[in-house]
């Protein structure tokens, strides 16, 4: 809890127009506190942009095989590191969320009572996503770190 500034309440006794020191921490206003709908949209945007950049790199490295198969092998070999393994996990997580939430958005738009159940639909998306990741993550991580 931030300490209270004494000047605000007691300003009547001193000079009438004492302006307390400005508060620096929150500069551009508070963050809007949206609920599930807003955060699902934020996550959808972030995962969407991330997947776009992955696809860009993915098309470039796959296209390399037509230019030079040796160079392609070198590039693909360089991906087989633990860091890239974790990146793959993040990629599957991002695609899984984007796909499931995309289905939720379709339901919100086209199912006549979708807008009333959007919150439950969002938790449904997170539940399915968790099941997906519980199935995928252990196998994948054993593969990456198990040698």
């Amino acid at each position, binding site marked *: *809890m931030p300490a209270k500034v004494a000047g*605000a309440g007691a300003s009547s006794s001193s000079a009438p127009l004492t302006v307390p020191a400005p508060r620096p921490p929150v500069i551009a*206003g508070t963050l*809007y*506190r*949206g609920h599930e*709908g807003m955060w699902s*949209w934020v996550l959808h945007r972030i995962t969407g942009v991330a997947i776009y950049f992955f696809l860009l790199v993915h098309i470039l490295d796959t296209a390399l095989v037509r230019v030079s198969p040796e160079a392609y092998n070198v590039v693909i070999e360089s991906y087989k590191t633990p860091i890239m393994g974790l990146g793959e996990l993040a990629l599957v997580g991002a695609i899984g969320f984007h796909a499931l939430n995309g289905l939720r958005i379709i339901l919100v*738009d086209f199912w006549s009572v979708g*807008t009333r159940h959007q919150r439950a639909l969002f938790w449904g998306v997170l539940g399915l996503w968790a099941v997906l990741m519980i199935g995928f993550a252990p196998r994948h991580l054993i593969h990456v770190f198990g040698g």
Partner: protein
Amino acid sequence: MATTAPEAPAQEVGAVQAFTVTLIVRRFDPEKDAEPHWQDFDVEMYSTDRVLDALHKIKWDQDGTLAFRRSCAHGICGSDAMRINGRNRLACKTLIKDLDISKPIYVEAIKGLPLEKDLIVDMEPFFESYRQVQPFLIASSKPEKERLQTIEQRARFDDTTKCILCAACTSSCPVFWTDGQYFGPAAIVNAHRFIFDSRDDAAQVRLDILNDKEGVWRCRTTFNCSEACPRGIEVTKAIAEVKQAILRGKP
């Protein structure tokens, strides 16, 4: 013998307990400040008071320069929409008891419209998009007496008749914050009110206006508007119904 020691004057039976509440208000004076800044105020409040009462106490007793809008102060005129603890609310409908007063209450102007002073924004862009959807009855027929309507026909758009044009929905929309051209939820709600009115003849005109890059298709269903509406209008649902009507080509 059993003389009881004079007790401290007990609180009067039924007296309402007052709390010291800290409000942190985002101040901006265009004549003095380059940037808005936060200012703390301590006010004595009852739990049954509203945030608007706290702002009144500040303005009347502590700092008369605080600027905010309010007219009816009873949730009908739609003047005092502001961001309270990061969410759009009417100051006159937000009770102190519904907020966590162990922490300061943050109060700032609504987002996405030009800030004029303290809690006052320029509402003109908001009303301009409202005007563009032609929010009035357009009917060619001249009935003998009144224009008849069944209960079902009236119920079709009942929800969207409740709008008070406070801009809480429009200024809670992330799309509106970054794209000021977007009509915004409030304009679409008021278009919905006439599009689905059986007495109105110009639904197609309004659907054409909203079938635009900056129209209903800008809606990304974040549901901030539905959550912010002080009248409980299902705003996102109304927008979805207008989207469907455009796809069908008729209301």
